[in-house]
């Protein structure tokens, strides 16, 4: 069976800097794939290429078999891809509930129905007590949760998480991990996650892609990848080996 998300040889450079070079990997339906790599490896650029913020210079991206490279972000969202932003972008002047309703309106143009969907998602993320607070007043961990809630409210087939665990306390990380495990098991939600918190990556993904200098340097199970000399070198430096 073809993978839900297929990335084939995509590249993108910014005024000469090759941020992403010939990157290819697949995310099978129902999988949780981790995308890791040192700072500046091109992970977020890779996300932005998949989500339609940038157009890949070469290569193809397919979602459920359909080519989506060159599409706008809103078209890609409607095709079933939800994403969070590494630098959170809440609708600061709106309440938590209203933020999530905006996402839920993709599922139903009826505001009442969208509110019901949003209330469920808000509860799932443990944001009920803050549901009428302005999003701008939230703490960073809550803003990260709100990012996830908003993306989930669009009922995506695949969810792209960009460092949602960063800045969370270990207990909060565990709660988030449990939530994604549950969504994955119960709804079959496919997840592609950029993550530096290895505790979360190890707990969630059975498959990891490692980027370095815009290129894929290793793929495989967490155990294999973390023993891969190339991976250790890029994280720890040549001398450490």
């Amino acid at each position, binding site marked *: 069976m073809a993978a839900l998300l297929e990335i084939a040889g995509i590249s993108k450079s910014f005024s000469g800097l090759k941020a992403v070079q010939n990157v290819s990997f697949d995310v099978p339906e129902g999988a949780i794939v981790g995308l890791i790599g040192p700072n500046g490896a091109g992970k977020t650029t890779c996300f932005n290429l998949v989500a339609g913020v940038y157009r890949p210079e070469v290569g193809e991206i397919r979602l459920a078999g359909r080519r989506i490279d060159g599409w706008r972000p809103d078209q890609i969202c409607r095709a079933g891809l939800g994403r969070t*932003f590494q630098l959170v972008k809440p609708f600061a002047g709106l309440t938590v509930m209203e933020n999530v309703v*905006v996402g839920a309106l993709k599922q139903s143009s009826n505001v009442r129905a969208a509110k019901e969907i949003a209330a469920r998602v808000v509860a799932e993320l443990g944001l009920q007590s803050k549901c009428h607070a302005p999003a701008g007043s939230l703490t960073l961990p809550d803003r990260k949760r709100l990012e996830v809630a908003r993306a989930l409210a669009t009922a995506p087939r695949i969810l792209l998480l960009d460092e949602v665990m960063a800045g969370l306390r270990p207990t909060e990380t565990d709660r988030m991990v449990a939530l994604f495990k549950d969504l994955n098991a119960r709804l079959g939600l496919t997840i592609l996650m950029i993550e530096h918190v290895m505790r979360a990556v190890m707990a969630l993904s059975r498959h990891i892609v490692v980027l370095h200098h815009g290129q894929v340097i290793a793929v495989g199970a967490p155990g294999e990848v973390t023993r891969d000399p190339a991976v250790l070198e890029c994280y720890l430096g040549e001398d450490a080996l």
Partner: protein
Amino acid sequence: MRGRWLDGAPSHGIILLSLLLAALILFPAVANDYLITVLILIFYFAYVGQAWNLMMGFAGQLSLGHALYVGLGAYAAAALYVHFGISPWLSLWASVAVAASTGGLIGFLAFRFGVAGVYFAILTIAFAEFARLAFDHWSWVGGSAGFFLPVANYAKNDLINLRGSPTMFYYVLLTMTVGAFLLCHALLRSRAGYYWLAIRESPEAAQALGINLFRYRMYVVVLSAAMTSLGGVVFAFYYNNLFPEQVFHISRSIELILAPIIGGIGTLFGPIIGAFLLTALAEGLDEVMRAVGLDVPGVKQIFYGLCLLGVVMFLPDGVWPPLAKALRLDRRRSQGQTGC
């Protein structure tokens, strides 16, 4: 009914609003002509302010050229009336069509080619200036010498042709102001309303949630232009004269955004409160100046400037949000009690 229209609105707010509306309906029976003309101005600014607020307050698209839509609406209806005797109730559709397509053109140019923020605002000014220059030289509608409607016969009110006493215009504009309020109220609770707020707060996040930025920005610009043009139709038939130098001038565009800014951008009551405060105070100032026998040109503009300064310094959200809190009318608190 209550569920759809009023959910979350505190009941004493509804009572207050009903009393205010009843007072305004009965007002012409007790007021003199002067007070009625002041109220006409207030309604006019509340109406066009509401239309502008739809674009800026809801969707975050700053227009500094809304006089363009007032002027296009005014000239289209006036020209059809003067040259062909067409009733304004028919020609208003032409006004709406002209203003909406001009708004659509500006929106298309801006949103297709990524002109945003202050550059978008400059584009709106530019189009208003184009129009001012074009109408200055268009003799079919009088050119720079002005375009005049046959002066109304105040003996009887002719609603079909919008010829009549200030009292008739009072009720026409009151209806429009209430209508604009109800329309914006309904829009704010619709999908489009949520999408506009999302675009105002963060276009990137909005787009990532499946919102077609181009489409929803176009909707709001076209709608705002169309609404504003209706204000222009009434403007033309009320004043009976149109001069491009006045109608399309940037000071007119600025004047019509003061009410929502002072009342509270992005709020439904802001444009109305702002129009009441500004117009009533400016007229009061006029009276005082006349009483003491001073004639200072531009005193109104200085007064507007001071109001703006005061609001920016002390009430950055406008007058309405703190006022609503003081009157316990803010919706958020009353909703909070019902839970999520």
